[in-house]
């Protein structure tokens, strides 16, 4: 009797698409990704909070079928174009995210914190390197586009009661025969584990938070509500 084909059912290989820390990174065109497991460092920049929908990686293929006179089924399919995209909705507004959304170079804020730029009526097509960094327990997945540019944008709605969305879709460009790099590896190879925390509490651990409770407990009990 022959052994069953591998792989068998294995739920530990099921991955929930949670961000590994910031999870979404951008850098100048052609920037090399960190080695497997190593942390993202400059010139990579975090794109900050994204919407709850996370990141969507898409793909499209254009083909041309060769159907001979003697058959109704094609005998060969020629791939004429392969498009791979990455889409997400950014929630943080800053020099990096606005520049990406408007496909414009954006100067650094001045001393007063003012960012001002014109969106050119022509031009654009800025090229970036983009990386998605996901982790689910012991499973890590990184997708890196070394060359990608803005493909399309969604509506930027300024409404009451909602974060202003920067809906961005980037399309992969060829990079010496490669569109993107996929890295899958165990979490044991991570050299630095980042957690998503607000900037002001980034150095604060759960233990620190627990210490706060001692201050609360030490306060004199007030008599009224």
């Amino acid at each position, binding site marked *: 009797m022959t052994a069953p084909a591998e792989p068998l059912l294995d739920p530990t290989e*099921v991955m929930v698409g949670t961000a590994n820390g910031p999870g979404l990174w951008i850098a100048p065109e052609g920037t090399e990704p960190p080695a497997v497991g190593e942390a993202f460092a400059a010139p990579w920049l975090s794109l900050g909070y994204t919407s709850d929908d996370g990141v969507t990686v898409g793909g499209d293929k254009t083909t041309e079928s060769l159907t001979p006179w003697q058959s109704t089924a094609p005998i060969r399919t020629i791939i004429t174009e392969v498009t791979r995209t990455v889409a997400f909705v950014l929630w943080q507004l800053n020099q990096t995210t606005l520049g990406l959304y408007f496909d414009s170079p954006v100067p650094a804020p001045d001393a007063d914190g003012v960012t001002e730029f014109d969106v050119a009526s022509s031009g654009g097509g800025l090229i970036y390197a983009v990386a998605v960094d996901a982790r689910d327990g012991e499973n890590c997945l990184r997708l890196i586009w070394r060359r990608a540019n803005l493909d399309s944008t969604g509506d930027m709605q300024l409404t009451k009661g909602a974060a202003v969305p920067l809906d961005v879709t980037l399309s992969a460009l060829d990079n010496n025969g490669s569109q993107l790099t996929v890295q899958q590896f165990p979490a044991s190879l991570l050299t630095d584990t980042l957690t998503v925390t607000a900037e002001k509490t980034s150095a604060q651990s759960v233990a620190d938070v627990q210490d*706060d409770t001692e201050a609360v407990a030490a306060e004199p009990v007030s008599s009224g509500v």
Partner: protein
Amino acid sequence: MRSASEMISRRRIAQSATFDPALNFPMPDIEAFVWQAVSHLGDDYGSSITSWCYASVPVPGPSGWNVLSSIQVDVRDQSKAAAFRRSDTARRIVLGLISVPWSEGVINRVDMVAGPQWLADYGTGRPRYVTQFVVQVHPNNGKEMQ
């Protein structure tokens, strides 16, 4: 009274029932983990804390692997201000659990879905704040855990 053969038969049914590996993992006890993290907030100075899982539903994936649990945390204290502050400490602890290593499972997300809500105890008027969270968990997926 069950016969010996009937007992053996039932045991065989139970032993042969697991055909999906996703079902053959111990379910992480997120309710106990949250309690482990916040219970110390209510052990002195007249304060008390209660946390429990009031609903749990599966999410898409292998059956039973991913679960979305709704957790409620009630914090009581001797004043409204003290209850609020202690409740906020509990909020930070629960939201921070996503980064705490846990041998039983993996927490994929923690969202606060309601609260902090002022809900003084009926009858006594004892100050209480209520906060509700949803926590998505699945069993530990480390190969060494199997």
